[in-house]
């Protein structure tokens, strides 16, 4: 069964006809030609397909494209119009990638994670559910546990996130579309 859907991807409107079986990930890559999100495990376990849907990080491999009709999708490629997004810049500065396959998902995940922490959302390692969130290394690792890196670049990814954490909030917002 085919259906016509609309997706706003990295600020641009796309109307595509998809088989109902198409995932958001496959629609982005195969129909819209946005190769930023990567297909790793294709079962929601590795995080390399992470994108922001209506500003929240999700695994695009487990979402049917038809169910995301009319949603706003941001991939790592669309995080900034001019220059690099502060999270992307931090990844460069700290050498937070090796093969780079997981990097677009990691970058989207960091952007979503900073939003969540900024809104005061606790994590599994947060001791006091009512206390203000402090992004310690332990919190960063727990909050990034949905993104696996087979090169094990984790120490530098944590360093990149620390760099963004310590930057001024205004810089952190970056040039988000």
């Amino acid at each position: 069964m085919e259906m016509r859907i609309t997706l706003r991807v990295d600020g641009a409107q796309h109307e595509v006809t998809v088989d109902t079986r198409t995932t958001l990930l496959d629609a982005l890559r195969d129909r819209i030609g946005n190769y930023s999100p990567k297909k790793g495990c294709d079962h929601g376990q590795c995080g390399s397909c992470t994108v922001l849907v209506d500003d929240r990080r999700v695994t695009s491999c487990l979402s049917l494209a038809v169910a995301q009709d009319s949603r706003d999708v941001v991939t790592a490629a669309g995080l900034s119009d001019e220059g690099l997004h502060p999270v992307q810049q931090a990844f460069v500065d700290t050498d937070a990638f090796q093969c780079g396959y997981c990097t677009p998902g990691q970058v989207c995940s960091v952007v979503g994670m900073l939003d969540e922490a900024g809104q005061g959302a606790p994590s599994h390692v947060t001791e006091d559910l009512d206390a203000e969130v402090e992004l310690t290394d332990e919190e960063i690792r727990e909050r990034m546990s949905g993104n696996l890196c087979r090169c094990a670049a984790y120490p530098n990814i944590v360093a990149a996130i620390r760099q963004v954490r310590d930057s001024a909030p205004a810089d952190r917002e970056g040039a988000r579309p």
Partner: protein
Amino acid sequence: MRPFRYERPEDTDAAVALLSEHDGARPLAGGTNLVDLMKLGVATPDVVVDVSRLPLDTVDPLDGGGARIGANVRNADLAAHPLIRRDYPVLSRALLSAASPQLRNLATTGGNLLQRTRCVYFQDVTTPCNKREPGSGCSAIGGYTRYHAVFGHSDDCIATHPSDMAVALAVLDATVVALGPGGERRIPAADFHRLPGDRPHLDTVLERDELVVAVELPPPVTGAVSTYRKVRDRASFAFALVSVAAHLEIDDDEVITGVRIACGGVAHKPWRAARAEELLTGRAASTAAFAEAADAELADATPVEGAEFKVPLLRRTIIAVLRDLAAEATGGRAGITGEEGPR
């Protein structure tokens, strides 16, 4: 993935009508489990009824206390909700221990309840599985059973229910609200999932044409403490080997006036430790009492071959959780540092 018709009904009645009209219809919410099972060929719905945009996405205080959680409330939002964090920390803790942030942003309250076992044989369509294909046999018996049952299993199925949230709901005495063609039905959360018996393909008591629309929590008990502890093979993003949700009320004399315990990772449903609860009610809080209660509960454990390690693991987890809660409830005063007693 097998082809299917996609429907996005306007309201809950239309969703229930679609489920009633088509035997092969399944509701879709966050998709974190259903879409995965469709990719694996385990789930093959003819009609996918997308209920994710139905307005069931708020947490509302109930008249007289308590809260009603819409079935579409995302796991991430529920865990972070101020009312849940304050009044039902066991639920926040359980949700935060589950899956990954990306999945919690998609997964919903209703979908979490209806997620299916992660038994590797259930997920592998090349192997027999009574849960996936009734009558075909159980490949898990004699196979890889690290995540399998300790209580309530049968010759037909030894799978465990994977939800953390459901374990917390069982200990909270929550109620699942389901909408069917005949109207709403209320089901105690502790009775929502069922033991496998000779019909392991049925995970819950929900009828095929019923839609989970909400979960209701009773008013919180003043002075009670609760928490959830999950033991797993790695620190994050893994299913429970065993888990314990507990709720404890202790009076000024350090006597236990209310206790509820539910265990995850050990049965086809959240396992309410009724025997341990009965033994502890009215007794002074002490580590020895907690150990005695854990032993009483585990006396009837029949761990499947390969899961024997879960019995001492669950014993220690129950004791540790109760000890920590007793310390929290009494500001560290209760005689909780006593010996565990003989095993």
